[in-house]
């Protein structure tokens, strides 16, 4: 067990991407009852545009910002023009999900058509590697994890202390009561979608930096993020973040101690087991769906 620490460290590093995606999914679900299946494709779109900008000489940090803004903006437009017209009500819950599936297909196809299928890369922010708990990690990964953690801390601060953040929590709890104290539901939805997709863009950006920019950039990470969401519950923000990290660690533990071949199997087995044992996740607020 002497190498447990490095495996956990590696798990936290890869888990930070899952946690960001999971957090994005949950923030959007809480505000508009929509599971956004296109979140990965929107984030990838942001990364592609960022890479193009970097190609024109924009610094890498500026590229990250561009990715966030593009993905966030796509999210805002999606909510306004595709989700909101569907109306509220539990019957439209699954319909909204299918709409985002459709949108994901469109974005995915467009990425391939516009940028082609030749992978490109993003230059490292800081080249080289460092040793953490005896495991060699690229500086890239360390910086990525740091930024991911900082972004999550910022989100936590936003929801805890700013009036808008408090208003968003209020709105998630009771749409009607939020409306009558003067909170604009459209603005809440827009901010949630911007935040959710923006966080996903951070994850996608670092995934791209790690490997390469391609249209299926977030696919594997997104399934793990969903596993994290199931662990934590669709309605809990801390649950999503913790769930994402937990999946990252589990994934690495399974790969190290069981079988690298069966990593995915184990992750999916966990999802199914959790759903059957506790459909609302371990930190979720029950099977809450508005009627």
């Amino acid at each position, binding site marked *: 067990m002497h190498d447990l620490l490095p495996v956990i460290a590696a798990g936290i590093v890869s888990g930070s991407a899952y946690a960001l995606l999971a957090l994005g999914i949950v923030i959007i679900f809480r505000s508009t009852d929509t599971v956004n299946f296109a979140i990965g494709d929107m984030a990838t779109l942001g990364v592609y545009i960022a890479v193009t900008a970097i190609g024109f000489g924009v610094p890498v940090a500026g590229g990250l910002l561009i990715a966030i803004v593009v993905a966030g903006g796509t999210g805002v437009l999606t909510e306004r023009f595709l989700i909101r017209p569907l109306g509220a009500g539990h019957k439209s819950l699954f319909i909204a999900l299918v709409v985002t599936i459709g949108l994901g297909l469109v974005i995915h196809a467009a990425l391939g058509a516009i940028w082609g299928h030749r992978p490109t890369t993003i230059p490292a922010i800081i080249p080289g590697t460092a040793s953490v708990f005896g495991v060699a990690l690229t500086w890239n990964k360390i910086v990525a994890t740091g930024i991911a953690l900082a972004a999550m801390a910022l989100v936590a601060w936003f929801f805890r202390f700013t*009036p808008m953040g*408090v*208003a968003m*929590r*209020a709105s998630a*709890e*009771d749409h*009607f*009561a*939020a*409306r*009558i*104290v*003067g*909170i*604009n*539901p459209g603005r809440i939805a827009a901010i949630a979608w911007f935040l959710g997709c923006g966080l996903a863009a951070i994850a996608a950006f670092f995934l791209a930096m790690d490997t390469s920019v391609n249209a299926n950039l977030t696919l594997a990470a997104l399934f793990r993020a969903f596993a994290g969401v199931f662990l934590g519950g669709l309605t809990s923000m801390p649950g999503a973040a913790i769930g994402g990290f937990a999946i990252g660690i589990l994934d690495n533990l399974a790969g190290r101690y069981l079988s690298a071949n069966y990593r995915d199997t184990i992750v999916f087995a966990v999802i199914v087991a959790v759903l059957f044992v506790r459909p609302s996740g371990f930190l979720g607020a029950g099977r809450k769906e508005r009627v």
Partner: protein
Amino acid sequence: MSALLAARGIGHRYQGVLALNDIELDVPKGTFMAILGPNGAGKSTLAQILAGAIRPAKGQILLEGADVTARAGRQGLIRNGVALIPEGRRLFGQLTVDENLMLGAYGQPRAVREARLEKVYALMPEAVRQGKHRAAVTLSGGEQQMLVVGRALMAEPRAILIDEPSLGLAPILTAKVYDLLSGLRRGGVTVVVFEQLATHALRHADSIVVINQGEISFRGGVDDEATHEALRTGYLGH
């Protein structure tokens, strides 16, 4: 005395279910009005329509004579000084007492909100003041009802519409809520309660409106014999 709020020919249905039919109502400025009626009479619907929280299918809502019907359906008339306290209180249970109150003045500058917060806390019972950082859901029913009035006061409204304040409260706690409302009325706030239980309303209100099966069946003063007769008919039949 001019009308602060008025309903003109208001009609409404929920999925075909008759809720309100041709309601004409003037709420005079600075008065305490009680709108009484059995459950299912349409009181909650009327409260929400008057506060602009839902848009009526028919008719108009006038605020100081101006037609504000078009503003209904989103944030209501809270920015125009009409606060609604809906049935069942609808506090944000997972949020703290502080956060609940601050949300009452949502959109105001921080300094304004903090100044109001101090004033409102002065009106709150001890337990609410002591529990600023507790989740609202942990308060007792009476404290929650006081808190939700406080949340409405944070908007410094000209009118407060309150739906079934007595629901689920022991009479002694209901009395405290009504004392607070009467105090507000003396301070110049227009108060409208929508109630099924007539007791407290009869003691505090200036005028009574009885509503039954979606229609106004009676209007009058508090002590009129006719009021009592109307109530009896409205609730228990002939």
